[in-house]
């Protein structure tokens, strides 16, 4: 690890100001950034911790929305998002207790790891990602593996999840990291079904629109029977071929639908 300055602002405005310095980086729970820095693969001059900002903490529910502060750790969501059980369950199954008590939702969605769990929930829920300067719909936020709509120095302050009628997340663990080898989040909303897939695609989290159409017409696993998942563009690595991942997308989507009913 190279030397760096450390700042821990107490307001979003202070954090934005601190991030304006050259080579500054925001630090959420550090579950990705700290190991990267230890390997000397990242060298921020200033590390701006977002964990001391009161307005970015906590989980709340009102008016059909669950709002998660950008610095809320996964354990907070697991215990505090009871109004959205599928989201709470997802958060409670990220990593291990140490990860869940350090890692934040803001860090996860800003990093947009193609195998992370949260992006599937955000996208399938049709959530809104709020930042220090704007509100971004989930469909616009995720732009490919490790790519998001965030601008330089922009901070995820909260994520607002509209409550679906029912939802379920099925995760098949990558055995070593226990990230999602494939994860499928199915959310049945009043105006249709959304299906978001993480872990599978080289383009990062995506919506499986054919499944959404079929399930919006008939919310039953049997509605998926005639669909096939194209393996092209799927990740292939030590832990599974692209064909295997394509298979898992279909299997896990059907299981998620079955678990909703």
């Amino acid at each position, binding site marked *: 690890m190279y030397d760096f300055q450390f700042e821990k602002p107490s307001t979003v405005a202070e954090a934005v100001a601190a991030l304006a310095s050259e080579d500054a980086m925001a630090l959420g729970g550090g579950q990705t950034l700290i190991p990267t820095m230890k390997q000397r693969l990242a060298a921020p001059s200033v590390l701006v911790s977002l964990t001391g900002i009161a307005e970015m903490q906590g989980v709340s529910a009102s008016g059909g929305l669950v709002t998660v502060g950008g610095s809320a750790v996964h354990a907070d969501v697991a215990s505090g998002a009871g109004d959205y059980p599928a989201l709470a369950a997802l958060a409670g199954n990220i990593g291990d207790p140490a990860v869940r008590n350090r890692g934040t939702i803001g860090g996860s969605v800003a990093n947009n790891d193609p195998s992370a769990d949260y992006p599937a929930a955000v996208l399938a829920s049709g959530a809104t990602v709020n930042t220090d300067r704007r509100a971004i719909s989930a469909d616009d936020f995720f732009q490919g593996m490790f790519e998001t709509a965030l601008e330089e120095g922009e901070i995820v302050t909260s994520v607002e999840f509209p409550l679906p009628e029912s939802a379920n997340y099925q995760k*098949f663990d990558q*055995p*070593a990291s226990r990230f999602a080898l494939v994860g499928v989040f199915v959310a049945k909303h009043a105006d249709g079904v959304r299906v978001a897939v993480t872990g599978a695609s080289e383009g990062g989290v995506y919506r499986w629109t054919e499944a959404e159409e079929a399930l919006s017409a008939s919310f039953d696993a049997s509605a998926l029977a005639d669909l096939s998942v194209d393996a092209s563009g799927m990740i292939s690595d*030590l*832990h*599974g071929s692209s064909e*295997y991942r394509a*298979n898992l997308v279909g*299997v896990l989507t059907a299981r998620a639908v079955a678990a909703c009913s």
Partner: protein
Amino acid sequence: MPKDNGIGESPKRREDVRFLTGRGQYTDDMKLHGQCYAHFVRSDVAHGIIKSIDTSAAGKMPGVCAIFTGEDFVEVGGNPAGWLINNRDGTPMKEPKRPVLAHGKVRHVGDAYAAVIAETYEQAVDAAEAIEADIDEQDAIIDMAQALANSDHRVHDEIDDNCCFDWGWIEDNRAATDAAFEGAAHVTSLELVNNRLVPNAMEGRASIADYNPGTDHYTLYTTSQNPHLTRLLISAFVMGIAENKLTIIAPDIGGGFGSKIYHYGEEALVLAASKKLGRPVKWAATRSESFMTDAHGRDHVTKMELATDALGNFLAIRTATMANMGAYLSNFATATPTYLHGTVMAGNYTVPLVYVNVKAVFTNTAPVDAYRGAGRPEATFQLERVIDMCARELGMDPLELRRKNFIQPDQFPFTTAAGVEYDSGNFGALVDKLEEIGDLKGFAARKAESADRGLLRGLGINTYIEACGLAPSNLAGILGARVGLYDAATVRVNATGNISVMTGAHSHGQGHETVFPQIVADLLGIPAESVEIVHGDTSKIPFGMGTYGSRSLSVAGSAIVKATEKIISKATKIAAHMMEAAEADVTFEDGTFAVAGTDKSLQFGEVAFKAYVPHDFPHDELEPGLEETAFYDPANFTYPSGAYACEVEVDPDTGKVTVCSFAAADDVGNVINPMIVEGQIHGGLGQGIGQALVENCVYDENGQLLSGSYMDYTMPRADDLPSFTVDQTALTPCAHNPLGTKGAGEAGAIGSPPTVVNAVVDALSDLGVTHIDMPVSPSRVWSAIQAAK
């Protein structure tokens, strides 16, 4: 009845008090006055010619004390192979020099070509980045078959076919074995891979060298399973430091699984640096360095064949293996695929002919060496997989096919077709025990219940025998060992009657501090609490060979028995003198000396005290003191055996395998501490199931380590494992050591991988799947199901 905390009792592990309360003292916990830090500069290519290394800028960086490159060690010896293996034609193996730092070429990712010593670790790392190395990358040699076939690409320029040796066992059996296959009614053939593993000890390797210019003495604190062997290698082969000018201290060791048997270049480097600087020099591996440079395990590719008659009687076994050596020969690398592998290829069976061929291959990968089980897991895996496949082909029950070919209890001692003499065993009794504890009869009902849930249930059976308790030195010498494999103990009875036992074994998790006192206490009739173990320090202990190969109890423990018997003999003389009786009339039982036919008696402590207060000793007949040393060289290997059963459920949609149950009936001979033996079996099973299901060390075709962190290298976790059902009561004592023990350290890791794979194949057999290589990962299982469709 066992005595209190004597043999057969299960006192809790006394070392756990410090390990579980953070009071352990590991090498990296130490900080010596004036210590500086070493950082190694390692190759990021698998194969390259070192054209130049410019350290001038790095040398001017803040805090830098010294920089070393391979040039500095040209005159120093290579780190040797411990066993000389001869080729089938009688010529010796190829043994390229393994230098302290790479010189001329780098040969694997992680191969160190320079080292920086600085005031702080960070300064050393900073300076390392300023070293400019011009390394001309060459094609990497990764695949073993290609390495043997292609003489244009050489790991070592002087070895044109990348072949270390081409070994035949038993070469004289080759023609007869081939003939038996020609005439056999049935031949089962199987090609399989024994997957490469990273040892992953919890504690990474670390070393601190402390050279004292005032005494010209070196002290090396290092993570070693065998401090004397490390000293011998450094003194006699690598550095030429006189043995009496080099003290090796291996403090608490946090696991090794074999990887800390060996001497590594980092140890030599810090010694040289400490001498040059006159200051202590520390190095501690990062986890990334552990992945890249700890000696890996397994990595065999094998064609296995079994010939039987029409009734399933085994006629002959023939195997051909390519064994990966990696880029250099680690100390035990050549013994592992040969004498620890070919010698147990007859398994538990009366098969009359065995022929094993092993080609050892150099590749641009980390060195491969003995890892928990070392050669015997590879042998057991191929043998027990091919037997399972044979049973299916013949339409026989896999357990009955094994029973039919077992060596029977009345046939011991039994010399196998693989050339070793098993002293004891009762394989039928183990299988009977297994059927009982594993409820094998209930399998069909459980399979139906799994099917109701859409899951495919399989039952895997396996029996194993292994050769451990390394090793009879005379036999090892004939087979090419360059060291003896005895062990040693000194029992020092202090004046107040408590005891220090100096042992040549060195625990890296086994529990020696608890078990060895149980032996001494049992023999002397004193409380185990009054016996302490001293180990790991060459300045304190007799020359022993350390801990590996399930040897500590059977070999070092036997040395403790011998030394304790000498203590009893000497103390009896003293007691006779004290009681004014003839020595022949003095008895010793439960800690009390008595004169037969009288009421005279003395407690052990009284005699001990007298030994050090010898006011009236007749000096021409009786020496003061009560301290004895014994060396014990075993008459034979020990041969633990066992019968295992595993049930799995396979999810056909995802390929996920769940281990539902695992039953293990082991014959490890007599048991000193049942709790610790059970723990050893559990640990071995966890490690073997890990190999079978999840662990895999993978290099890509360019020699990059794809599984170089825990993000991609899967360790078995608690939720990957079922609750184990284990039993060690169907035992036959070892016939040739005084404790009757056989060793339990490696058994679980040897017997479990084929058990798991047999179970998975059983689950999928109705679909037509006949084999899946380890690790039996979800994607591999799913692919096998698709391929069988």
